């Protein structure tokens, strides 16, 4: 049943959001802390686990794959509802602050990726042992 996969996906999102919201309250932050990321972890665990096979294989899996495939159309809709006019109205300060933050962050991607890939062979061996 397709709806089983969709229901699993929904349950992951709601559970993740609840935890993210609770983390926000615990840290005294007015934001959901990583709710979506936690939900993704749940789905990764479920799709890698034997127990949830009936919810992730066959028709149920295509229920999840459908929403995964709808991702780009949803992102296009998301782009179309951004407050672009306000960003343009922000003037030079907003423009410079935004552009500079992006340029510096782009430049850091290869630097930090290297930090990750250096010891990664050792790490994966450790995980293999565990």
């Amino acid at each position, binding site marked *: 049943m397709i709806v089983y996969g969709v229901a699993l996906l929904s349950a992951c999102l709601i559970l993740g959001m609840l935890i993210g919201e609770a983390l926000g309250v615990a*840290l005294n*932050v007015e934001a959901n802390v990583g709710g979506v990321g936690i939900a993704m972890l749940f789905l990764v665990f479920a*799709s890698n686990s034997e127990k949830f096979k009936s919810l992730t294989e066959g028709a149920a899996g295509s229920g999840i794959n459908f929403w995964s495939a709808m*991702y*780009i159309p949803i992102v296009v809709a998301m*782009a179309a509802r951004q*407050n672009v006019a306000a960003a343009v109205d922000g003037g030079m300060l*907003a423009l410079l602050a935004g552009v500079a933050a992006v340029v510096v962050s782009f430049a850091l991607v290869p630097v*930090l990726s290297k930090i990750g890939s250096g010891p990664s062979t050792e790490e994966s061996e450790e995980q293999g042992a565990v």
Partner: protein
Amino acid sequence: MELIETVFVRNNLIVAFAVVGVTIWISYLVADKLTHGRIHGSAIAIALGLVAAYFGGVATGGNTGVADIALLGGIGLMGGGMMRDFAIVATAFGVHLSELKKAGVAGVISIFAGVIVSFIVGAVIAILFGYTDAAEITTIGAGAVTYIVGPVTGEAIGASDAVITLSVAAGLVKSILVMIGTPLVARYIGLNNPQSAMVFGGLMGTTSGVAAGLAATDPKLVPYGAMTATFYTGVGCLLGPSILFFIVSGIY
């Protein structure tokens, strides 16, 4: 006319599916015929969406782009936070745990590095523009983190509405630039594997920007970047009104 409006408004989400579908079809056609596949179809579709959002915003004076036009109201629901998060989580289906573990440490470092670096850049530019009040500098710096961190920080430390609006604008510029710029720079920053995608998500942090930028670069990388990006705003809201504000007020 009234008849069309009734049908369109009543079925707004369905209209959105159709409109987005046609937009993507045109974009892929353009990508194929005019750029010979050099620019990804989804990058063109996202750019078209942003252009439409600009004109929608100018025409209606609203703050949700095209979605403020009554006939296209469904775009607001389809592209809203709920559907976006649902689809992002779905992209994690089929991701291997080992890939996540490999970049785990670098991913976490990148989140903190991303928040702090963006904040410093934003704050320095605020200072260059002549701001001397610690709350104002902090709020603009926080805006360069994301357009959510800006207002959350600004309200917490009592910045003026004008500065909070500026911080939102800075965050929007960042988000839009990440959407457009990522596919263009991907090759030069080594953005072609799950590890660098996780670092990228952590450094950029704007969920919308990362989501769209990676989609236009390589859809396979989306779950990895999105995973770290979704922690970024939370970390930003945590550091902005606290440590980062204390540091700035110590200097000013």
